[in-house]
């Protein structure tokens, strides 16, 4: 089996390399047979990668502990879900998983886009297959998951594996990495289309439409991956927070930020033929930041709790990045004439300007995160001292930038395309500004004095009013015309322009998340050594330790503390935080228990035991508004899905029929 698995990886690598060369040679020599052959090699590479993945998965599921990877990442008592998760739980398996996703994306992108983008599909194949070949090369020659345990010349096996890292044994961890990988790897597709369009000097806007849709899909996956990771950190790591500004967390955020900037600025290109160089730079930066993030996780550039074991593969990533960036820069510089803007800005107070501002702020935020992440490397290089900046630095730098971005989220839709008159500006700003000021006054009257939280909540009111007014005004027009009720009219409005109103839903999601982030300003934390019957008071709550229980399972030993939670004397519920000790890996972890409410979370951790082992140490966190982050996450997913659905165009009367669109152009719903 191990030989078959390795053979499949090797063949997939060779097929991907062949697809790259054949696609380029076919295009340059105008040989359609070679081009077709390259496309078929993509399919064959996917089949081989799928076969290799199937063999590894089979070995994990059947507890084949002669595989070194299986022995080190799984064990016989592991639940089925976590056995599957063991596929991406280690360096070698995760690289194979990555390669399989890349192969699947290549297969889907090539076979859905080959007739639509006939003139550039070979370059798309070349870019995607080259990336795939790179990762398959790493699997084949540096991180082989099919290595077996040898005893002299004989293959042997161990009685049981060491098991999956206990921190990864959580349902969220079965979904979070695949989502993140779908995001990371997925950005290869829009990058490949963008680069191919650049190489072929693609006319028309059809390729932009394809690139934008792929970007939105992968952006959605990346968003889900990041948010699931935050939720996992919140409920598993047991430190009361959801984002620690860890280098690996930051690595996932960087391409998300540039991808977000691209999704905004690409509208300028679609609608006005502007910012072409900028868009190519953004999508390229997004792709290279994905590769850079992967290098950080695996190459040992920075240390992180999420990183895989440090290995030698970092240098391969450096080379890949260097060559990739150099080639992209070459194509951009030699095709500047093709990237020339078709229109220019007419006013600072316009929708175009707001997109520009939005991009500048997003890039500043991206730089701030990158700067902080690389600060240990830079400080060591320049001063000799390795200073790893943490949450205090990131929060101080990113909070003002984030608030400015939130402001722009509300301001953007209030501006018209081209230019906004003073009268229109006054009319559009009136209600949102009034809402923001009312919110500010109410919070001040209620006694809130935290400056950043006050600004944040006021801006949230501003943006919410903007978004609601957009829906209301559009809905009223349809309501008057069709006589439907306002809610139905708003649904119809959204269906007519899914991209625009889906986008507004995403803006609302961001508002909800900011409400959750602002709540952190009022977190309360307390820690106490408790005996059975003891009561502690934290904020308005009382916590009484009722009992302690222990239980042994085949996979782990667990100690559970039953804690009654009351609020001003009224019993609410019993929380059951626990500590686990995993037999296979000999590692302890904590499982928090949380009382989730819209107002605040009561978050209880069984942190350990006192020196004499008699009393548990209980940590209590009161985290206000944190649930709005998860609600915002759901709204973000819904909003993006809405934006991905094609708009339903209303029938037009004959006399007002619009002229036919030019060939190669795409009718885009406005924003």
């Amino acid at each position: 089996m191990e030989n078959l698995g390795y053979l499949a990886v090797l063949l997939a690598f060779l097929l991907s390399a062949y697809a790259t060369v054949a696609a380029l040679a076919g295009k340059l020599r105008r040989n359609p047979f070679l081009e077709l052959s390259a496309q078929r090699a993509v399919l064959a590479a996917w089949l081989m990668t799928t076969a290799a993945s199937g063999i590894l998965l089979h070995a994990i599921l059947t507890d084949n502990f002669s595989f070194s990877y299986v022995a080190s990442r799984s064990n016989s008592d592991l639940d089925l879900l976590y056995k599957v998760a063991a596929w991406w739980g280690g360096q070698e398996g995760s690289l194979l998983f990555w390669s399989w996703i890349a192969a699947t994306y290549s297969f889907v992108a090539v076979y859905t886009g080959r007739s639509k983008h006939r003139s550039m599909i070979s370059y798309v194949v070349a870019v995607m297959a080259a990336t795939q070949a790179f990762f398959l090369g790493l699997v084949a020659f540096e991180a082989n998951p099919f290595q077996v345990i040898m005893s002299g010349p004989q293959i042997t096996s161990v009685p049981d594996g060491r098991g999956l890292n206990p921190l990864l044994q959580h349902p969220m961890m079965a979904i979070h990495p695949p989502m993140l990988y779908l995001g990371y790897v997925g950005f290869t597709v829009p990058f490949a289309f963008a680069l191919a369009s650049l190489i072929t000097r693609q006319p028309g806007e059809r390729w932009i439409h394809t690139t934008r849709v792929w970007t939105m899909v992968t952006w959605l996956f990346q968003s889900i991956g990041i948010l699931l990771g935050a939720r996992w950190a919140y409920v598993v790591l047991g430190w009361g927070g959801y984002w620690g500004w860890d280098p690996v967390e930051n690595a996932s955020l960087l391409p998300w930020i540039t991808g977000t900037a691209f999704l905004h600025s690409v509208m300028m290109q679609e609608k006005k033929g502007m910012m072409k160089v900028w868009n190519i730079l953004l999508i390229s930066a997004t792709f290279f930041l994905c590769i850079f993030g992967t290098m950080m996780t695996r190459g040992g550039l920075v240390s992180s709790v999420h990183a895989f074991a440090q290995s030698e593969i970092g240098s391969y990533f450096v080379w890949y990045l260097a060559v990739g960036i150099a080639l992209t820069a070459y194509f951009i510089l030699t095709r500047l004439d093709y990237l020339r803007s078709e229109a220019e800005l007419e006013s600072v107070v316009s929708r175009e300007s707001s997109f520009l501002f939005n991009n500048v702020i997003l890039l500043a935020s991206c730089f701030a995160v990158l700067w902080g992440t690389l600060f240990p490397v830079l400080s060591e290089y320049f001063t000799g001292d390795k200073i790893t900046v943490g949450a205090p630095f990131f929060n101080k730098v990113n909070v003002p930038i984030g608030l400015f971005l939130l402001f722009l989220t509300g301001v953007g839709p209030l501006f018209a395309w081209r230019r906004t008159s003073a009268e229109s500006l006054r009319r559009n700003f009136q209600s949102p500004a009034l809402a923001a000021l009312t919110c500010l006054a109410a919070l001040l009257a209620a006694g809130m004095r935290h400056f950043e939280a006050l600004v944040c909540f006021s801006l949230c009111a501003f943006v919410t009013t903007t978004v609601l007014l957009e829906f209301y005004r559009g809905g009223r027009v349809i309501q008057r015309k069709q006589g439907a009720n306002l809610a139905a009219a708003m649904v119809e409005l959204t269906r007519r322009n899914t991209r625009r109103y889906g986008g507004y839903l995403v803006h609302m999601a961001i508002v909800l998340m900011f409400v959750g982030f602002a709540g952190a300003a009022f977190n309360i934390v307390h820690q106490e050594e408790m005996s059975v019957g003891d009561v502690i008071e934290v904020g308005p709550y009382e916590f009484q330790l009722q009992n302690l229980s222990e239980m042994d399972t085949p996979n782990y030993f667990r100690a559970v503390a039953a804690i009654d939670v009351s609020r001003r004397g009224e019993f609410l519920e019993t929380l059951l935080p626990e500590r686990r000790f995993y037999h296979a890996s000999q590692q302890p972890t904590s499982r928090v228990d949380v009382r989730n409410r819209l107002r605040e979370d009561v978050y209880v951790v069984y942190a350990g035991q006192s020196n004499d082992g008699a009393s548990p140490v209980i940590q209590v966190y009161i985290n206000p508004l944190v649930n709005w982050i998860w609600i915002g996450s759901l709204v973000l997913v819904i909003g993006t899905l809405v934006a991905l659905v094609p708009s339903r165009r209303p029938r037009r009367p004959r006399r007002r029929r619009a002229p036919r669109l030019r060939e190669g152009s795409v009718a885009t719903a406005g924003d």
Partner: protein
Amino acid sequence: MRPPAISLLALLLACSAQGAVPYAKLRQVADLVSCQCGCSYTVGSCNMLNCHFRDPILQQISEGLEAGEPEEAVLEAVYEQYGPETRVQPREDAFGMLGWTAPFALLGVGLAAMVLVVRRWRARTAARSETRQVSDRVLERYRSQIEDDLGKLE
């Protein structure tokens, strides 16, 4: 099988129990020290059991605060003893200042560049509008867009 005895933060708890240093305060200060046990968190947030790195630092911070030393002095003593890698913020030197200001400097440069670009574009657009008609291609696009928007209103 019972796990090995789990001991945790004995001194911290003793301090908290005596009420010498409130836990929230201790945590706030300890969150300005990077834990080097491999957890990637701060000494205040490290949740590793029997952390060899966290416990002595918590003890030192607790003793310092209890003795009435200012936070900054307590932290500087920790950084001095355990090395600059325990800092979670850039230090107060030239490179540290660069660390703090670089993101904002980039933001300022970006905004300034944007304003310059917009001004240049506006000037060029104004000059062109005086000398040249709108190209047919652009005109066709706008007409199409207007028709599109009117269609939506109906």
